[in-house]
């Protein structure tokens, strides 16, 4: 007996550093996480990024102001329309361009549908991360209908190049309203199904409740935004606080969590889909007649200066900071990507937890590596 206790005391304890990724199925792209483990407990995380770096900001400096728009699609490729919106709003702010009301409504509709599409993809892949494969198929069934609507409107399934300086490229197709309303009805049923299937599932609750906790102070100090910030109880939504476009005309709520754990982040995203559906319905009802592109000069030459515009993207505050020297090309484009900021948080939320929950933590901050690395 004595021998046993002494053996226990001398048990070899050592921290171990392991590499997760860059080709790990649950890293949502190409992310390497250098994880320090003590047994099964995570003692530190150092995310290594840059595997998808394409010099987006440098490329922008070599294109004309309008040629940049399709490039923005390639940063966060599952929410391309919101990327275009951030860039276009920044340039419009710099130039003082007027945008027709109909175009603003169309932008709102498209941005909200994009949010639904992005959250559906998150829902599917997050279930997958936790070992539930079926939700993925369910979410993609709904998302496919939505992508078809996007394809009909913009001509592309993922990278749209639809939102242009001064408006949008073309008007909505004739049966857009009918199809969208039909989709929203389908989504409502789908969301209920998702709830029964995954969110209300006891295993899901065990794996998400009380884990990956981010307090409100931490969230603000570390620059979290979007559902990740709101799940911690901070009701900050750019659509409410700085209503760009015509968001101030719609009645919708901002879902806020309390504990800031993985579960709250999930619930926030699920509720956001419902709110987005509400906005789309109201926007379709109030959609005014008129032009979809305003008066835009043939050659875009914004006056010298700097402008920053931010939009509430599905993942958080997506901002674009542009600098013009008065020429036909941007002097500098800075992409403020929410995922880049959130990835820093990984160390904060995963430290002290089990390595098995690390995957759930990555999934819960909803990162897209294309946007992190740019």
């Amino acid at each position, binding site marked *: 007996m004595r021998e046993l206790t002494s053996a226990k005391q001398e048990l070899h304890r050592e921290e171990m550093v392991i590499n997760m990724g860059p080709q790990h199925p649950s890293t949502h792209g190409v992310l390497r996480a250098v994880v320090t483990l003590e047994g099964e407990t995570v003692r530190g995380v150092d995310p290594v*990024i*840059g595997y998808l*770096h394409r*010099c987006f*900001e*440098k*490329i922008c*400096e*070599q294109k004309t102001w309008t040629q940049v728009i399709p490039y923005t699609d390639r940063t966060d490729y599952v929410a391309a329309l919101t990327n275009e919106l951030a860039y276009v709003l920044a340039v419009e*702010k*710099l130039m*003082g361009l007027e945008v027709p009301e109909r175009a603003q409504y169309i932008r709102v509709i498209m941005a909200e549908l994009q949010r639904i599409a992005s959250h559906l993809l998150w829902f599917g892949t997050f279930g997958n991360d936790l070992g539930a494969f079926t939700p993925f198929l369910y979410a993609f069934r709904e998302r496919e209908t939505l992508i078809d609507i996007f394809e009909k409107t913009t001509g592309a399934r993922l990278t749209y190049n639809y939102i242009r300086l001064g408006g949008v490229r073309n008007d909505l197709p004739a049966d857009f309203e009918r199809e969208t309303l039909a989709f929203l009805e389908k989504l409502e049923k789908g969301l209920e199904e998702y709830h029964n299937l995954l969110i209300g599932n006891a295993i899901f609750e065990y794996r998400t409740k009380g884990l990956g906790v981010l307090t409100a102070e931490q969230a*603000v*100090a*570390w*620059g979290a935004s979007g559902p990740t910030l709101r799940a911690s109880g*901070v009701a*900050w939504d750019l659509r409410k*606080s*700085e*209503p760009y476009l015509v968001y101030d005309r719609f009645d919708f709520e901002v879902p806020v969590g309390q504990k800031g754990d993985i579960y709250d982040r999930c619930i926030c995203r699920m509720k956001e889909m419902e709110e987005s559906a509400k906005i789309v319905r109201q926007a379709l009802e109030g959609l005014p007649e008129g032009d979809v592109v305003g008066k835009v000069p043939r050659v875009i030459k914004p006056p010298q*200066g*700097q*402008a*920053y515009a*931010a939009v509430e993207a599905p993942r958080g*505050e997506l*901002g674009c*900071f542009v*600098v013009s020297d008065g020429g036909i090309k941007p*002097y*500098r484009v*800075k992409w*403020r990507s929410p995922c*880049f*900021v959130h*990835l*820093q948080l990984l160390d904060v939320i995963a430290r002290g937890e089990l390595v098995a929950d690390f995957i759930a933590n990555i999934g819960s901050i909803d990162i897209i590596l294309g946007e992190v*690395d*740019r």
Partner: protein
Amino acid sequence: MADVRELVDKVAADLSFAEVSQSPVDVGEMVVKVDREKYLAACRRLRDEFGFDYLSFVTCVDYPESLEIVAYAINLETQARVKVLVDLSKEEPEVDSLVEVWPTANWHEREAYDLFGVVFRGHPDLRRILLHEKFEGHPLRKDYGSNPLLKAYE
């Protein structure tokens, strides 16, 4: 949207060493221009005294004569936004790190170091972030040049 005109006067009175104005293109944005040595103090004052508790981003712009550091912060209560600008000479691109004021500055500053070669004094972990460790040069500098293939395409 919050109008920062009144705030501009208050901040100008408080930060006597800074040049404070309202952005010409955005009524909700205050522009604070400071010297390099007063940068950290100004940012700390803006956070503690004026409630700018949320840092949106830190970046750099390479102008012909100087490098300009841009730090963008938000007051989550009043929705006012502030842009802090600092000019750095190209011979000595060094400035204090904001990590102790806003922890989120960590990666933003690493990115500015990586792509512009700006050294942030007091940064806890200043290494390259997007490019690999052995990469030479700082590609977002204007003198770095561009991809010859892209030039041929033009």
